[in-house]
């Protein structure tokens, strides 16, 4: 009888074990489903305030040679190297005062432009024509908009809402007035206490900046070559020496909302991240000034006196990608940047080399998907910009597509950000890759990942993002329900 009982129990455990195994497999699937969809995994829209979104261990990847490649004598960045500055200048020239002829018109050609625009376009044949085409596209885009408005009303309203505080008397942070030697010190309190050490300063500033909403914070010394020349905010067009108190840069990163970002080019918008960043660095400037140090906020879309990707690299946040955008381990290419320049004594972070740039050499997905053809396909970067060899996109081509997609006006494209394999949320699958990939000296892991990326994932292809007849108004991934107009409105 004892034996029989034993066998029954034995049978029971055997069967329960099989059921347990099946249930545990089903549970693994269920948990995976939940983990993939969890809002906790939306880096930068979750655990940011306490710095938990900066979870990548950078220490093993510290490097003495930052991953931009120096090939000659560095030079300061001319004002007109920025697309938006150029456009502003051109617009100004084409605008005729009442009763006068404009200073420049398309008929006069690039040679008739004043310096530095003349040299700029002389060095880049065709660029000016691309811009002329962009203007034409803009007209067409506005004419097309009624066709797409019923589909994308919400994406439009969402973008307009995020952008709202940029215009009118509500603009924040206030722009500097007068030279930095005045404006960066305006509102500054007298220094009352001294920091225990520059390290204390850095740790403090990082924690505070996280509570302001920054997903990533890094600090670097400001190299002169990253400072623009020819224009200074608060002063205007001027050649200027880098102010003596521009010693350190606190670099801040925040992501776009993930679901709308994946639904680029139509459903994404720049202003969710931009408005957040302005909020953060505007507050940080005041915080630093209240401690008795000069500070100067740098913020998107165009209020910069320095170039952001290089200072972010110096500050150890990430590496520059093929698409020209900074890629960070936490946020991938979904990394938007702002900064505060300060004279506060800080300890600089070290740049990293986590194999991102090396991966970009092989991947090319962004170039394959770019609807404008602005991203290079070469195996290694070939452009040399002011003494640095680096990936550089064709700015006019890129801008032209902004004026082409099914939005009401040039709201950007951001497809390269969405399709980048580094642009992944925070969950166990991608975290395992984040830990393992940069630690593999053979590069085999990266090769395997890239293979899976290219075979398992599907991409619409570069033309699909455009409206008919060229494309089909595709987005990289379908938009979330809350941005789909026809979920909420009668069409």
């Amino acid at each position, binding site marked *: 009888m004892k034996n029989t009982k034993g066998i029954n129990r034995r049978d029971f455990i055997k069967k329960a074990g099989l059921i*347990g195994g099946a249930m545990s497999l089903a*549970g693994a699937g269920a948990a995976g489903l*939940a983990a993939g969809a969890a809002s906790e995994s939306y880096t930068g829209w979750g655990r940011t305030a306490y710095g938990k979104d900066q979870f990548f261990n950078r220490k093993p990847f510290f490097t003495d040679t930052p991953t931009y490649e120096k090939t000659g004598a560095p030079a300061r960045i001319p004002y007109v190297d920025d697309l938006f500055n150029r456009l502003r200048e051109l617009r100004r020239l084409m605008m005729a005062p009442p009763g006068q002829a404009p200073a420049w018109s398309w008929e006069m050609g690039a040679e008739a432009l004043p310096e530095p625009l003349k040299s700029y376009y002389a060095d880049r044949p065709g660029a000016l024509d691309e811009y002329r085409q962009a203007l034409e596209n803009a007209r067409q885009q506005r004419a097309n908009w009624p066709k797409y408005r019923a589909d994308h009303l919400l994406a439009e309203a969402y973008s307009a809402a995020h952008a709202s505080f940029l215009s009118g008397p509500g603009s924040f942070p206030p722009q500097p007035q007068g030279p930095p030697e005045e404006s960066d010190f305006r509102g500054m309190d007298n220094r009352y206490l001294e920091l225990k050490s520059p390290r204390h300063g850095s740790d403090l500033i990082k924690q505070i900046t996280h509570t302001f909403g920054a997903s990533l914070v890094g600090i670097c010394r400001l190299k002169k070559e990253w400072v623009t020349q020819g224009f200074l905010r608060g002063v205007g067009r001027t050649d200027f020496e880098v102010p003596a108190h521009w010693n350190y840069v606190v670099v801040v990163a925040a992501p776009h909302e993930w679901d709308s970002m994946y639904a680029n080019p139509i459903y994404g918008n720049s202003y969710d991240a931009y408005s957040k960043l302005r909020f953060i660095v505007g507050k940080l400037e005041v915080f630093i000034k209240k401690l008795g140090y000069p500070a100067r906020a740098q913020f998107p879309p165009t209020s910069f006196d320095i170039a952001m990707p290089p200072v972010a690299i110096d500050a150890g946040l990430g590496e520059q990608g093929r698409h020209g955008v900074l890629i960070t381990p936490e946020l991938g290419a979904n990394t938007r940047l702002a900064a505060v320049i300060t004279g506060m004594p800080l300890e600089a972070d070290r740049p990293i080399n986590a194999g991102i740039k090396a991966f970009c050499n092989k991947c090319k997905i962004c170039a394959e998907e770019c609807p404008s053809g602005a991203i290079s396909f070469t195996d290694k970067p070939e452009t040399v910009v002011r003494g640095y060899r680096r990936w550089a996109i064709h700015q006019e081509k890129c801008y032209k597509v902004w004026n082409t997609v099914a939005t009401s006006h040039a709201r950007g494209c951001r497809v390269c950000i969405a399709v980048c394999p580094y642009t992944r949320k925070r969950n*166990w699958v991608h975290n395992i890759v984040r830990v393992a990939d940069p630690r593999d000296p053979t590069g085999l892991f990266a090769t395997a990942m890239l293979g899976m990326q290219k075979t398992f994932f599907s991409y619409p292809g570069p033309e699909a993002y455009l409206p008919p007849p060229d494309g089909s108004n595709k987005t990289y991934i379908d938009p979330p329900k809350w941005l789909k107009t026809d979920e909420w409105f009668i069409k």
Partner: protein
Amino acid sequence: MNGLLSNAPALMYFDVIFGSTVLKPLFWMIMGGLLILFFSGLRLWFSDLGIAMRWWKWALFAAWFMGVYVTIAGGFTLVGENEARAGLYFMGVFGTLLIILGAGLWRILNTK
């Protein structure tokens, strides 16, 4: 609750467990218990089937089973991320590989 799950309301009930500070840890505790139950039963199965298990056989089997476990979890993670196609391909490719490996493993387990 975003992406796929916001478009498929039935799946929002997942959040009752995985969004809960009480039920989510409980879920994982039960998952751990289920694994033990599974391996306890398996031991008896192997012995009844006349398979002489050694430590290295258990190690091989555990590694194979972890592969199955991670493949299912990973595939559904991608599905939850709104990358359903990638998730199904992931499970298809690695699932096939694991079936082949499983057949090989079965032969190995049946050796002395």
